[in-house]
């Protein structure tokens, strides 16, 4: 992402998805795990913290494959995405039509203090990467009004879906959230899934 990239504020961009969401499984990690709970407290929210950085989409793919009866929405950062670009191919090849991956692209490693990613200053096009990986339903937004208008349509496209949202860093939020203890979270989450 280049420095002159137009960007949305993060929370309103997430609010669009919170308004759209009904009973989907939602996997958050890093910055999204800090911000999403401000908008949602749902038993099918899985706050993937502590995580293996870069692997939230893979964990979400596993959920999508295990539960084809449910739609799965996964958030990932751009730094996380860069750590496992191959996951885009794995997702494309998986046939998981119930999976949507939303990349929140702010151009930095936010939770470690705002350092630049390897893509800083480079016009890395995450939507193009997803498309080239074989994901057919791909969209990118940098304008909140356009994202609000198009979100429902984009999320109804054949899955798996990939959405890149250019968002502003949350400078005051340079830290990870304090998560619900993982064991407790897993018990509650699996209970909500009926597992």
């Amino acid at each position, binding site marked *: 992402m280049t420095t002159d990239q137009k960007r949305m504020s993060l929370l309103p961009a997430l609010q669009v998805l919170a308004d759209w969401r009904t009973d989907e499984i939602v996997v958050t990690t890093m910055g999204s795990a800090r911000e999403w709970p401000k908008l949602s407290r749902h038993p099918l929210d*899985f706050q993937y913290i*502590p*995580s*293996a*950085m*870069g*692997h*939230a989409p*893979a*964990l*979400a*793919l*596993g*959920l*999508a*494959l*295990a*539960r084809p009866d449910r739609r799965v929405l996964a958030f990932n950062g751009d730094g996380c995405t860069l750590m*496992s670009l*191959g*996951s885009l*191919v*794995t997702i494309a*090849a*998986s046939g998981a039509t119930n999976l949507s991956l939303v990349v929140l692209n702010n151009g930095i490693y936010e939770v470690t203090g705002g350092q630049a990613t390897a893509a800083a200053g480079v016009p890395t096009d995450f939507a193009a990467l997803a498309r080239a990986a074989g994901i057919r339903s791909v969209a990118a937004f940098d304008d909140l009004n356009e994202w609000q208008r198009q979100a429902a349509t984009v999320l109804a496209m054949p899955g798996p879906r990939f959405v890149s949202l250019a968002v502003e860093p949350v400078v005051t939020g340079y830290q990870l959230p304090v998560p619900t203890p*993982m*064991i407790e979270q*897993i018990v509650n*989450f*699996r209970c909500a*899934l*009926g*597992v």
Partner: protein
Amino acid sequence: MLTGPEIASTLAELGVTHVVWIPDSTLGGWEAALAQSAALRLVRVCREGEAWAIAAGLHLGGSRPIVVIQNTGLFESGDALRNALFDLGLPLYAIVGYRSYLLPDSTDTARRFTEPVLRAWGLDYVLLDKPVNSAARLAEHYRACQAAVRPGIALLAEGKG
């Protein structure tokens, strides 16, 4: 050590639902049988770290996955393994190709570090190094780990992978 049909039928009998894998030249011989099994779904990944995270998601969703990778991939995927098995505390199981184990004079560092790394992580593992009873030993170890709700590894002895 184990043929494709043997491993496919063994995993199916154990109730495994998904095989998440990257093959090596030994494990790769299982591909046709795994792909054709009506009881198993083969999930191909690009890098081994993905395998642990996908298996974690499958487990959380109620499926019974198994990870199948080479020991080199085990090393590569250390952080994902650490997260899935210890942060999330999931009793995932893996079959790991033990490259060069059958070559006693091998200087392959993948051979040298495999068991020390597993011991450092405190992982329960079984070594399948004989042609006879490998399927039965794998099944026995898998069942024991599942009953104890702990992760486990089956090391499959290989020549050069």
